[in-house]
């Protein structure tokens, strides 16, 4: 029993890791699509696409990984979540299809470029929005009597707001990535938009946090019952601190451009890590709210866990391959380190 408990917990953490990796990595490349309408020239659009063309596929693989870990380690939760969120998942997939193929076809098109621009922008935004929508519904919880697959429980003001909030978050990640990977006017623009997005994201986080403790008594108790608030207070405090630093760094990049002085390297690179930190803190906050549920107030990770034979079978694969995956993914990023060059590079 002891063993079972800790192995299931390990898989819950692994699932969390997969989701976090996905959100951070695909976050910045979905964010490119969300930012797309705010950049207008073909050259800018080229740059946006080029900056993520070599990594989007790997980033999206974390979504598949999250899906199959859920499937393999918590089959009951995979079945319940996937069928409950039928429409948002289908729409997310359709969005991911259009934005994914846009990478291939946009660079090879002459006359149809404008359609691929829209496919990329709308597809990315739709996928991000649906992810936020599902996240919001999970936090809020689906009807407790039974898993009603004909209901529209995922459609509420709160979940819609979460959809928009996730879009803003991804756009912020994309801005920070651009500040790191580009130069000149484009970097300036990204820093400016980034500053605004920091404010929007922080406001959304505040609103979502207050909203959840307002509508969900269980979450309220989790955060404010007993002495909980005392040891949980670092989460919001650190978030505010990270946001403050992020805003300041982006402001420095912004000012350097206005004064036409060189941007310092650390101010270019730090924003991305600060934004990632912000996401991490928000994610931990989310875990505090929903633990130990996979489908809140219905299905805990222990109830949904696969039999030991399945959990143990996956362990060696995870311990051998996950470090390898992280290593060669990092290697891939290293090879393309530095600024994105607008050269005719590629296959």
């Amino acid at each position: 029993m002891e063993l079972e408990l800790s192995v299931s917990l390990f898989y819950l953490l692994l699932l969390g890791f997969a989701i976090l990796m996905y959100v951070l990595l695909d976050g910045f490349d979905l964010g490119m699509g969300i930012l797309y309408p705010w950049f207008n020239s073909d050259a800018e659009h080229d740059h946006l696409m080029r900056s993520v063309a070599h990594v989007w596929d790997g980033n999206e693989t974390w979504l598949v990984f999250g899906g199959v870990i859920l499937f393999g380690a918590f089959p009951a939760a995979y079945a319940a979540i996937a069928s409950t969120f039928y429409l948002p998942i289908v729409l997310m997939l359709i969005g991911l299809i259009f934005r994914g193929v846009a990478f291939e076809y946009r660079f090879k098109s002459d006359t149809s470029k404008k359609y691929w621009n829209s496919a990329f922008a709308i597809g990315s935004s739709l996928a991000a929005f649906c992810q936020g929508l599902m996240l919001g519904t999970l936090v809020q919880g689906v009807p407790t009597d039974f898993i009603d697959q004909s209901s529209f429980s995922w459609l509420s003001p709160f979940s819609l707001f979460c959809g928009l909030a996730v879009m803003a978050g991804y756009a912020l990640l994309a801005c920070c990535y651009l500040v790191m990977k580009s130069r000149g006017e484009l970097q300036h623009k990204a820093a400016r938009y980034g500053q605004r997005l920091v404010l929007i994201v922080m406001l959304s986080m505040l609103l979502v946090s207050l909203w959840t403790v307002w509508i969900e008594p269980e979450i309220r108790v989790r955060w404010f019952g007993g002495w909980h608030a005392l040891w949980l207070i670092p989460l919001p405090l650190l978030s505010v601190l990270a946001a403050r630093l992020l805003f300041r760094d982006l402001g420095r990049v912004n000012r350097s451009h206005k004064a036409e002085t060189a941007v310092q390297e650390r101010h270019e690179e730090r924003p991305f890590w600060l934004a990632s930190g912000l996401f991490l803190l928000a994610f931990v906050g989310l875990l505090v709210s929903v633990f130990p549920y996979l489908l809140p107030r219905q299905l805990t990770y222990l109830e949904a866990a696969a039999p030991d034979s399945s959990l143990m079978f996956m362990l060696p694969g995870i311990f051998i391959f996950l470090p390898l995956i992280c290593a060669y993914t990092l290697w891939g990023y290293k090879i393309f380190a530095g600024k994105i060059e607008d050269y005719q590079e590629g296959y």
Partner: protein
Amino acid sequence: MELDVSILSRLQFAFTVSFHIIFPSITIGLATLIAIWEGLWLKTGNPQYLQLAKFWIKPFAITFGMGVVSGIVLSYEFGTNFSKFSEMAGAVIGPLMAYEVLTAFFLEAGFLGVMLFGWQRVSARMHFFATVTVAVGTWISAFWIIAANSWMQTPQGHQFVDGKFEVVSWMEVIFNPSMPYRFFHMLLAAFITATFVVMATHAWYLRKGQHIDFGRKGLSMTLWIALVLTPLQAWVGDLHGLNVKEHQPVKLAAMEGIWAPTEANVPLLLFALPDMKAEKNHYEVAVPGLASLILTHSWDGELQGLKSVPAADRPNVPMVFFSFRVMVGIGMLMIGVALLGAYLRWRGTLYQSNWFLWPVSFMAPTGIIAVLAGWYVVEIGRQPWIIYGLVRTSEVVSPLPAERVLFSLTLFVLTYSLLFAVYLYFMRKLIKKGPAPVDHLQQQRIGVKASGYALSFTKTLATDAETSNSPATDPKGAN
């Protein structure tokens, strides 16, 4: 009309999985071919091999992209449309797919970036390593997904506890009776599919009198490959057939159109119209005793027929029967092309024989059609079971409102039809454009950090001057 959610979900899965398999069938083989060409180029220094690799990497990239996006759909569709199946068999299927992601998907995606965009950033050897890794990744991926699918065809190594499957022996689950045959059959099918896509394209160049050297090199290589692989595939296919007879006799009966509960001296039906109501065939064209000979290696060997099980346990016979004939027919045609090509080569008239090149240039989709037909035999043939003999497909569908599934099915049909047209359009465009000249390729190989890079970049710009939207014309972006 009352909408049936079970039928709709099955239709949707069939449609999305059929669409998906088109692309991996091409990329598994094409990645392998590109790796071979790149290796030959490194070994011999002959720039023609580089030209082949660099030309085919473009169709490879768009095909791979299509495979990725249509594949993500499938990894969620088990749960969205077959939630009861996922809950029941998740402990068996889920870990196999987790291994697929861990050992294959990440590998492919991780090295694909370098393979496509890293020509100027890593050494030629490192690039070759990346290409080989992508190719091997596609094989590993095929291994796991075939293992999972084969367990559903010939399940073993499990026990049934509280309405759910639990694994007793993973070795037995993975290496289930049909798995090895099906793995090699599929891998060969993918190699052959890509071979014929390449062969047809190069035959087309020769027939048009364009890129002659390039056309000859590709045609010659692919004809050699076809000469080895197509007969090999026939042999593996035959072994696989014997395996089906052993473990899924009803499927085999549908493939061969055998109705009597047991029949000796079974004829091989070249054509027939199976009638499920009358439980017999119409308009049979048959070779007496041949089916018995092939499947039991004796003229009067006995085979189990469809009527050995109740009508409710039989698959849709005509669909299985005709799909099987389409697959075998295309296979025979491919063997014929390979042999004829070898004969013409021996005669020394291969590249001049327009009567041969002309039909070959239309054979690009044949491999894909055969793969689809083969999968229809496998998947329709095992119905009504989703886990053969244990769980019926109709019992494990998600209890969704039918309208919702109809909506998503419509959305997928529209999206995929559009994308397929776009895919064909861009494939045609890339092929019509033809390969880059050899000297241009040499120039492209200069590394990003090398001093010659800026010069070669300027030259490229000059070539692209007509495309006014070139990104580097933005002065601030280039400083």
